């Protein structure tokens, strides 16, 4: 076994222990439609296990590991349906800060993010959504931020990294919660979590809060968003794998017409097709991680390939699992619906399948690929 595989195995085992000891589907149900929508004590446990710092370099108090290790943890973690915002905070927000150029701010915030004391969120999308981090309507001028951000998750963060357009190109500011001029409203999501709709009315910011500007800001945002997009693929893989397991198990035990429904060929072929989609998702994610470990360029392309496949496969497995369950699949008490709803959220987040299909076509024109 390579050192990498060893490392990933250990990380996965740690999540399995976490899954058995610190979380349960009952807990997930309990937290739906609550505020802030996750459990701060569990977040602390997650931080103690080191997962919030997996992708933060050691010099800032993290583990200094890479996408492959993070993917291993997120895939397993996602199987538990825990609502704690691991990818959004530990990848999307933390990495945007890290890829920025404000050393003092990194020293101030990253150790706290790694240790779980600071919960950050990246506020990068405008109200219309879309995956281009430089399509910015929010303005930074005269030492204040003005505009609106949407789909911010976690909505109740300790601070928000807010992207905006300034006279000198894009900028990224750290804005603490409670800052005058910053208000947060909530929108509920299919899985019972909530994302934030942030309004900025001349929210004052100073240079010490400037995480990145100009080209650095653009590159930091793009890279962090792509990394989190790839990781959302790992989460989707976890969700669809578990959903398929549950469904296959149901096909073995549910009896109609004197036989397990899993013996009906119509359902067998359906299950095989779902399995194939899951295997394709696994394959493209694995390939992406191998390639990116050797050559980090091409991140956007790989992120789109992964997110496209995993979003579509996750949605399909979610929907068809309901169908295969029959009436019980349409109930709230049956867990399978929770998996479908999480797949819906992850699939819409950071660009859905169609959006990434488009970006793939733009990044890899068919002629060039041939």
């Amino acid at each position, binding site marked *: 076994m390579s050192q990498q595989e060893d490392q990933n195995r250990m990380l996965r085992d740690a999540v399995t222990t976490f899954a058995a000891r610190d979380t349960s589907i009952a807990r997930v149900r309990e937290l739906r439609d609550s505020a802030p929508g996750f459990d701060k004590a569990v977040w602390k446990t997650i931080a103690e296990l080191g997962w919030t710092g997996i992708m933060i370099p050691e010099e800032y108090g993290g583990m200094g590991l890479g996408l492959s290790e993070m993917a291993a943890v997120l895939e397993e973690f996602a199987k538990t349906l825990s609502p704690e915002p691991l990818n959004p905070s530990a990848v999307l927000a933390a990495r945007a800060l890290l890829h920025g150029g404000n050393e003092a701010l990194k020293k101030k915030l990253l150790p706290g993010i790694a240790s779980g004391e600071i919960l950050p969120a990246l506020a990068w999308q405008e109200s219309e959504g*879309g995956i281009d981090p430089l399509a910015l309507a929010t303005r930074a001028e005269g030492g204040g931020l003005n505009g609106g951000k949407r789909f911010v998750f976690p909505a109740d963060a300790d601070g928000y990294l807010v992207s905006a357009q300034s006279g000198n190109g894009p900028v990224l500011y750290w804005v603490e919660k409670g800052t005058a001029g910053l208000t947060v409203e909530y929108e*509920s999501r299919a899985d019972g979590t909530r*994302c934030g709709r942030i309004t900025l009315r001349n929210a004052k910011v100073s240079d010490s809060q400037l995480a990145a500007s100009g080209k650095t800001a653009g590159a930091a945002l793009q890279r962090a968003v792509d990394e989190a997009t790839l990781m959302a693929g790992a989460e989707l893989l976890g969700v669809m794998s578990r959903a398929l397991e549950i469904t296959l198990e149901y096909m073995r035990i549910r*009896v*109609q*017409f004197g036989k397990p429904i899993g013996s009906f060929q119509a359902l067998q072929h359906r299950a095989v097709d779902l399995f194939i989609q899951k295997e394709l998702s696994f394959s493209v994610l694995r390939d992406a991680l191998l390639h990116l470990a050797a050559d980090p360029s091409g991140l956007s392309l790989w992120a789109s390939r992964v997110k496209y496949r995993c979003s579509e496969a996750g949605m399909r497995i979610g929907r068809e699992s309901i169908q295969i369950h029959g009436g019980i699949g349409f*109930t709230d008490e049956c867990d399978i619906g929770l998996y479908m709803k999480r797949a819906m959220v992850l699939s*819409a987040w950071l*660009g859905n399948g169609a959006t990434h299909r488009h970006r793939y076509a733009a990044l890899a024109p068919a002629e060039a690929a041939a």
Partner: protein
Amino acid sequence: MQTRDWDKMADEAFRLEVRGFFQKQYPEHLRFPAYHLRWADTKDWYKKLVDKGWAAPGWPKEWGGMGLSPSKLLIFIEEQERHGVARTPDMGIILLGPLLIKFATEEQKKRFLPPTLRGEYIWCQGYSEPNAGSDLANLKTEAVLDGDEYVINGSKIWTSYAMDATHMFILVRTDKQAKKQEGISFLLVDMKTPGITIRPIRNLLGVEVFAQVFLDNVRTPAQWLVGKPNQGWTMAKALLGFERISIGSPKLAQTGLKRLEAIVQSQGLTRDPAFMDRYTQLRLDVADLASAYGRFADLLKRGETLGPDVSILKIVATETFQRLTELTLEAAGDAGALGGKVAFRKDSVDILSPFYNARPATIYGGSNEIQRNILAKNVLDLPG
């Protein structure tokens, strides 16, 4: 009360009359509801239908119905759907009424039809059981004759509107020795009878529309058995025809298309040829579904009975609607997982409720897998 001879009226005139009534009388805020309404929501509207004499369009006039022929009934339903008129918990009107009219004794008709029409009796359908879904004939709830009463034991599940219902029509096993389909009877039960417990079940939308109903030594009068003992299966099956065509109506898909249209415009998707191609595909699917529906509707209008090929309609209608709700989520983009009414530039649209509600349509009324089995066997004449 109007007791006119609707069938003498020209179709178009009838259509306009029905349309006018809905436009004038149906509460605006209940149009095109995104989720199933409960009796409390629709009660007042139902009262209006009763006063007008329109509560049971398909029943014969002698029982207070409108006495519509199949063709007029289809027009009535089309107008109902066109205006977005919600269905009330109407199983008594749509499913039970015709069955009683065909199979019940005069006394039973007198006893049950008038209060059902007036909305005093709200019925639920107790067919499915935990272990008898697709394989309905496997039902185990048992009824044993004791003097002049049947004593019922067992449980029913997925019973829609059980919480609102005053009565239930139920399939029970009355002969355990007979072959599966041959030992089943059709009984009526008062929901207030001791021994009935209702456990409401929350659905994917988070609301309680169906329930599990437990029957523990529930006594119902022997005169409440409809038809002959052990003939329940044949009776229940005899009525499936009209249900299958109404589940195949293109209206849900047409309404879904309108919702999608608002999002397409708001999101600027008309400039995306790849999206527009898939959107157009769906529009054609909906249009052709309407054509297929028209074809089967014409058969009914001519007084012919529908064959097993009507299953096509259920498959196309429910699956087209599902794909439509899926494309709607996709078109909504980042907002595609937001709950409640989501504000888009052109309109506010609830995208999740239709997506969830589209799911069980391929499960109930005979799942789409079962419909395909029927088509393969009875229409394509394949072996096995």
